[in-house]
């Protein structure tokens, strides 16, 4: 919704249009100096910021997922080993007595 | 202290002896510098007037690029046959090893500059005035470059990607030296007011003071915990 606010900058846009029309009608190649429309630039800036932040978040999330997978594997392995240990103890127990 | 100086001197002299024997650093560095100056001449020389504008940048680019070759090679020698381990297993302080290596680099880089500067003056028909300011700028800048450069060249001497990593890490840090050096050189080539050069010299000297001490201090904790 906030983005809607951007387009309230009509004055700048129309001014730019006017200059552009004037320039083209006189056959002068337009020099973009002062009359660059600000709206798209502003949108681009905000987009870039959020894209960078979210790319970072997604990357971080993926690292986390990889780590969790590893932790899971470790737990599994640990359980196996504990089971093996119990098995051994069972086997040794009766024979020992 | 006396012992430290002796240790420094032994390592420093050893590097010079090896270099006099193989000449590989001075030759490769010198040739590379020569090549750069020639290529830059083709690229930038138009007339004496304009070359005064380009020459400072060309000089410092040449110094830094060629100097990097020496940085990497001089410390690589400590890794041949694992010599650094042998040196560290003696009563020498690791810091003295570093200072000796950095001074070795300084010497070789200065020698390369002795070759480069006259060539540059010739090719670009330059007039350096006053010489003292120019030389102190060159010397101070080279000192900072060699100490910071040697630190990272030493650390990365065993790394797989050292040829890329050393410049990647060292160049941004020494930007103040490059900017300052270029400005000082511009002053002496264009008869700008000398005070401006002195200001830049002060900046480079301050940079040297801080970063040379930092580099000397850092070597030991960086190389081993």
């Amino acid at each position, binding site marked *: 919704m906030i983005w809607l606010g951007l387009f309230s900058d009509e004055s700048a846009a129309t001014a730019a249009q006017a200059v552009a029309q004037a320039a083209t009608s006189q056959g002068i190649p337009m020099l973009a100096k002062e009359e660059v429309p600000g709206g798209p630039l502003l949108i681009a800036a905000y987009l870039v910021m959020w894209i960078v932040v979210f790319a970072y978040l997604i990357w971080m999330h993926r690292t986390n997922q990889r780590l969790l997978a590893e932790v899971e594997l470790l737990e599994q392995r640990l359980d196996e080993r504990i089971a093996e240990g119990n098995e051994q103890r069972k086997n040794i127990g009766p024979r020992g007595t | 202290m006396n012992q430290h100086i002796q240790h420094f001197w032994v390592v420093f002299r050893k590097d010079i002896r090896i270099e006099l024997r193989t000449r590989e650093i001075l030759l490769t560095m010198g040739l590379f510098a020569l090549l750069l100056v020639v290529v830059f001449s083709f690229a930038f020389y138009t007339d004496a007037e304009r070359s005064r504008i380009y020459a400072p940048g060309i000089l410092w680019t040449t110094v830094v690029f060629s100097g990097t070759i020496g940085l990497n090679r001089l410390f690589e020698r400590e890794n041949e*046959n*694992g010599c650094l381990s042998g040196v560290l297993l003696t009563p020498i302080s690791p810091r003295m090893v570093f200072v000796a290596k950095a001074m070795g680099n300084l010497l070789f880089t200065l020698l390369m500059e002795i070759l480069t500067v006259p060539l540059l003056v010739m090719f670009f028909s330059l007039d350096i005035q006053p010489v003292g300011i120019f030389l102190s700028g060159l010397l101070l800048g080279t000192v900072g470059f060699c100490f910071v450069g040697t630190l990272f060249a030493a650390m990365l001497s065993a790394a797989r990607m050292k040829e890329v990593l050393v410049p990647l890490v060292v160049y941004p840090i020494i930007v103040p030296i490059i900017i300052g050096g270029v400005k000082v050189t511009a002053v002496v080539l264009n008869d700008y007011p000398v005070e401006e050069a002195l200001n830049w010299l002060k900046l480079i000297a301050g940079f040297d003071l801080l970063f040379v001490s930092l580099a000397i201090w850092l070597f030991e904790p960086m190389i*081993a*915990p």
Partner: protein
Amino acid sequence: MTATHDTLPFHEVQAVDVSKIYDRIVALRRVNFKATAGTITGIVGPNGAGKSTLFHILSTLVAPSSGRVLFDGSDVSAWQPRSALRGQIGMLGHQSFLYPDMTGEENLTFFGTLFGIGRADLPDAVKRVLECVRMDHAKTRRVKHCSRGMTQRLAFARVLLQDPTLWLLDEPTTGLDVDTRAAMLDIISSQKVNKRIVVVISHDPEALHVVADRVLRLDRGRIDDNGTGDT
């Protein structure tokens, strides 16, 4: 070579629960190990068992990931400056620690100065160790032109020159002819009398049988138990 038992800076080196992990690869697993002055410890084990890692950790050049290395019961950090301790540790490693572009004599003179041998005594000391390893004739040859065996002898001469308290010898007899090998084993044996701490890694069971008081077996980063001397 004049230090006596009493003037040695330490008489015992000990590894307590030492483990070393390089980026998730385990090189040493809770190694406990003790060597005292006047003993020669042999270490055997297959390639990749962690022998070199153990030596680098004992030499204090590499820090263990966990566990401690103690010299006479004190941590490395207790020795200030550390270089004073390191000067008493001699290593004959996988690599020769010799500059390839200098001659054997120059290398020894260079290291001799760093070891703190006085300028007046240095030429004699260098000459003596060169004779000990029978390299007197080839002392002016650059190390890069030396054969494997010659380099090995020079590397051994370097340790002799240092005459450290702790001797870490990694495969000291590889590439040597029979006579030199015998001479070298003699020198190693004599360190018992000098009350040095000697640790030898070797693939040469016969050599270990001659010099070592005990032989430990290092396998998959773990010291198994006290071996009997034959493997």
